[in-house]
């Protein structure tokens, strides 16, 4: 029985369980709901819960584990001599899975009988057959792969039989257990609420699972990468020249330099503009101006990054070339192409303006009015108050905001992918094309590279570096903001 039908059946059983539990509770109270400990529906829900929870858990666990077991059993049929390395084995295994799925599809469509599908000959045109069934194969099928696929199918179909039995057994056991326990004195509501609470805890734990998933997938693949490529070279080499044929040099330093350079330019644009905008809005602007300008600034924050990327590539880049390029307005010839550190940096700066301004706005507003009044009382002008009283008081918060903006700039992808160029270079000329960590993650992982080569795995090491840097910046920023908060409350 397939998982979908099993799920439908589970739901049907649990719905029956609801009715049964409710009826039994009512019967035990002689039809008078006031004799019950809980409302009648809680007795039904209690039974429903004890059917669904074990049934679904078993189903889920089985669905996760079964493909792994079947894959291992099938892979054990492939001799070591048939593949060169782990990547080749992975490719073969994905063929095995496709063939197994394809044969099942073909049987489902009635192109083959079950017996025929089991006795296929590798010499026959399996590829053509599966093609007709709508499953395209990359290459012809050889005997080893076919045997593995047949083993995979066999394990899967016995597995599915046992899954059906196990799930139904657990569900029915749950039904029997809670049905027999149902009685007018049973504290059904407390049981149901405890079940609900564990559901809430599970939902909240997804945050932990996500972090765990990120960290594990990064660490696992990063170690895999460092087995193939020395870590020392990765962190110290000054060249980045991947070639999928082998012999690549994968030094992170040029990428880090590009990332930091672009972020620096972005911050040089965003911090003064954002900060002054925040100061003006919170200290000078009338309520009316504030109510118009603030939402408009937030529009800048709501625009997707792909739009900024396109803006950099097609508008700002050519514009900068016209000014700084050869034969441009200034006749400097500094810039050769539209994609450059400056292009990406400027546009990213614009993107960060609302980020800096709204964060600093909150922080400046949090400075107690008494401090301003004291300063005015001593005869300071408004700007002197801002510069000498408000800003120093808000400084830790503003530094935190700038750090958060820096972390955003370092992790930004679309603007640099489109605006910064693809060449990894160590140069100080901001009008030259450079590339960043995020842009290289994208370029190393898109395309059909298999995940066993160092050229693809390096993306995980880059991602790890990025994750550590941004996480460090965020924690540092939060630490500073938290210290600041303690000063005034």
């Amino acid at each position, binding site marked *: 029985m397939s998982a979908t039908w099993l799920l439908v059946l589970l739901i049907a059983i649990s719905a029956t369980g609801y009715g049964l539990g409710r009826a039994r509770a009512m019967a035990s109270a002689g039809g008078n709901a006031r004799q019950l400990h809980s409302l009648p529906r809680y007795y039904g829900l209690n039974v429903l819960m004890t059917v669904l929870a074990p049934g679904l858990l078993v189903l889920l666990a089985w669905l996760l584990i079964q493909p792994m077991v079947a894959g291992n059993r099938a892979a054990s049929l492939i001799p070591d001599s048939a593949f060169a390395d782990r990547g080749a084995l992975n490719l073969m295994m994905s063929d095995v899975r496709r063939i197994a799925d394809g044969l099942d599809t073909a049987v489902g469509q009635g192109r083959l009988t079950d017996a025929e599908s089991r006795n296929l000959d590798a010499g026959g045109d399996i590829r053509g057959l599966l093609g007709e069934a709508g499953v395209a194969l990359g290459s012809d099928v050889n005997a080893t792969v076919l045997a593995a696929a047949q083993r995979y199918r066999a394990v899967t179909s016995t597995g599915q039989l046992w899954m059906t039995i196990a799930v139904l057994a657990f569900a029915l056991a749950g039904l029997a257990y809670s049905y027999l326990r149902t009685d007018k004195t049973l504290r059904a509501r407390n049981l149901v*609420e405890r079940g609900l609470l564990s559901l809430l805890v599970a939902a909240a734990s997804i945050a932990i699972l996500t972090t765990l998933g990120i960290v594990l*997938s990064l660490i696992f693949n990063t170690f895999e990468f460092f087995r193939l490529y020395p870590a020392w070279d990765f962190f110290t080499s000054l060249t980045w020249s991947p070639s999928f044929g082998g012999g690549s040099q994968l030094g992170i330093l040029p990428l880090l330099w590009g990332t930091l350079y672009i972020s620096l330019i972005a911050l040089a644009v965003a911090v003064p503009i*954002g900060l002054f905008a925040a100061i003006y809005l919170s200290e000078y602007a009338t309520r009316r101006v504030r109510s118009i300008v603030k939402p408009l*600034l937030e529009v800048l924050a709501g625009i997707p990054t792909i739009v900024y990327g396109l803006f950099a590539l*097609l508008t700002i880049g050519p514009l900068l070339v016209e000014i700084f390029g050869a034969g441009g307005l200034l006749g400097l010839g500094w810039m050769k192409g539209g994609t450059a550190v400056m292009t990406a940096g400027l546009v990213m700066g614009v993107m960060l303006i609302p980020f800096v301004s709204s964060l600093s706005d909150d922080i400046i507003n949090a400075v107690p009015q008494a401090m301003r009044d004291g300063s005015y009382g001593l005869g300071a002008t408004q700007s002197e108050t801002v*510069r000498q009283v408000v800003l120093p008081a808000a400084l830790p918060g503003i530094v935190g905001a700038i750090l958060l903006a820096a972390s*955003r700039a370092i992790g930004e992808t679309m603007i640099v992918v489109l605006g910064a160029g693809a060449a990894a270079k160590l140069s100080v000329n901001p009008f030259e094309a450079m590339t960043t960590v995020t842009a290289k*993650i994208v370029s190393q992982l898109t395309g059909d590279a298999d995940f066993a080569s160092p050229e693809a795995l390096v993306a995980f090491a880059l991602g790890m570096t990025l*994750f550590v840097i941004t*996480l460090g910046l965020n924690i540092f920023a939060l630490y500073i903001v938290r210290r600041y908060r303690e000063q005034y409350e």
Partner: protein
Amino acid sequence: MTETSAQPEGKSSLYRLDPRTRNRNAAEKRFRLYGILAITVSLLFLAVLLGTIIRNGLPAFQQTFITIPVLLDEEKLDKNGNRDPADLAKVTTFKYGPMIDEALEANVTSLGIETPFKKAKELSAILSANAASQVRDFVLADPGRIGTTVEFRLLASSRVDGYLKGRVTRDSVARDKSIDAEHLDLVDALRAEGVISKGFNLSFVTGADASESRPEQAGIGVAMLGSFFMMLVVLALSLPIGVAASIYLEEFASKNRFNDLIEVNISNLAAVPSIVFGILGLAVFIQFAHLPQSAPLVGGLVLTLMTLPTIIISTRASLKAVPPSIRDAALGVGASKMQSVFHHVLPLAMPGILTGTIIGLAQALGETAPLLLIGMVGYIASNYPAGIAEGFLNPNSAMPAQIYEWAKRADPAYYERAWGGIIILLLFLMAMNIIAILLRRKFERRW
């Protein structure tokens, strides 16, 4: 207060400012000016950005069409004359191409336009490569019309389209292999006769992506469906999970290690770069769980994980805004803690939760970077999903991924499409944000 200043010379008066005060006042004015300047600059950026989008994107909604009568020649299309659909389907677009070219040539001669072209085939440069399949689809749908002359509104080639929109000029044509200046003369003449005209381009909004060489045919409709299915996944997962997590953290969680860990994780996840979520999706959903690559389901899962922190943060804020007296009153009349939350607090917080969810969805809709890693780019979204299940599981693109794909292509005609796609994307985002604002205005309660 008295005017006892610390001036060395007592010559200042209330009427005449001394130099120091003048300096201080000037500094004040400068400071205020910096603020105004900063705001002006950022608003200017916004205006330039929006102006650029509209100026470059609006032409994508217009397309050049060539309206000509075409004789559906029975000799060529149905040699056996039996109108058998299987036979008709065997005739490929290669047969249709010359037929259309001849129809165009006949039309040109009948209008009395002189051209230097000798063969009908030379005229095909002004027609889209799609024209043949357009006519073929018509014939296959209605074989009864074979043998008659039917008026078709065929797509012009992207160069002709660009010429009418000002993107292609006679200077740029000189370096172009696919079209000559003579073609443009012909286009001018045909335009004067009304054969070539610009019209609203519905197929840009509803159509499918096309291959690199046919920008005139490309549309964003299929990618829009991909985005739609992704948003369904995000909504169906992130709303219940986000609300459940927020209820736990806000109403039930006591202060202990485990709950602190959850809090720290949520605030950190909110600041993790989106590309890292793409790496997670690639490693966990595709490499490990073997879910189909490029599928909206996987995209939706990744975007769910990405938007969950946003939704949790805003949901907690709206739960917190419900005054404790409501909870106390519910507990006072005998409700359990769980009942007080689900029967009273949650309904009251619902408008705020929905607002936060819509804003989270808008963020997810515009996100591109994680989609690049799970393979929703580079895939040519040329077919509509056949059904609901296929919509979730078959490879598709998404709106921002489609825009990125167009921006990468070499033909500048695709840039226009990319800008046009951005207009559509921004319209969606604007609509979602406006709905969120209206919801907040209508239902927000202050206690």
